[in-house]
């Protein structure tokens, strides 16, 4: 019954590896987002998809690639992980003109 769910909750990996984070929402929303929250808790948007189409792409290294197979799913793939990628990544979704609903985050730690 979770509205926005992300997996995994924790991800510990070595520098240089490739990893993916999955997100699913069961709210029927058309728009989904990825945010990065750094160690100082600052929240910054990375990407936004509306009905599987990319609409926001902030200044993010192209090692990060979002993929939306359908409007209920938005996955994030990260290539060649770097130490600076350590953060909590949040998925969110919203309906038209509605506030965003967030998942509980994926804590990514790079060794």
């Amino acid at each position, binding site marked *: 019954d979770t509205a*926005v769910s992300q997996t995994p909750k924790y991800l510990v990996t070595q520098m240089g590896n490739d990893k993916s984070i999955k997100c699913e929402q069961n709210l029927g929303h058309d728009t989904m*987002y990825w945010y990065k929250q750094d160690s*100082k*808790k*600052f*929240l*910054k*948007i990375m990407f*936004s998809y509306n009905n599987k189409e990319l609409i*926001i792409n902030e200044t993010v290294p192209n090692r990060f690639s979002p993929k939306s197979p359908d409007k209920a799913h938005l996955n994030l793939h990260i290539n060649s992980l770097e130490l600076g990628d350590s953060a909590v990544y*949040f998925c*969110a979704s919203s309906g*038209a*003109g509605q*506030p*965003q*609903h*967030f*998942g*509980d*985050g994926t804590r990514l730690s790079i060794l």
Partner: protein
Amino acid sequence: QQQVKQSPQSLIVQKGGISIINCAYENTAFDYFPWYQQFPGKGPALLIAIRPDVSEKKEGRFTISFNKSAKQFSLHIMDSQPGDSATYFCAASILGDKVIFGPGTSLSVIP
């Protein structure tokens, strides 16, 4: 112009007291101002929101005051409780567009 400023960075309030968090913005095109509450290990959750055509909105112990001419808004938590201890984010957006978050305020309510 896209920035949202927030203060204080951290706040300690005694149980029963009033917690006040202030925010300011520059972009006059913003038309939606939500506040999010985040507990450790969880995603931000919408607490209360206001549009610029009203000067105040109250929901239970939480009140947003909005000053359009000064481009400022604030969150007041009346009768603060230990369970209110969390990080609070003000935000601003043009509804339907990306949300710009303030840097967050860590609130601790002590018994």
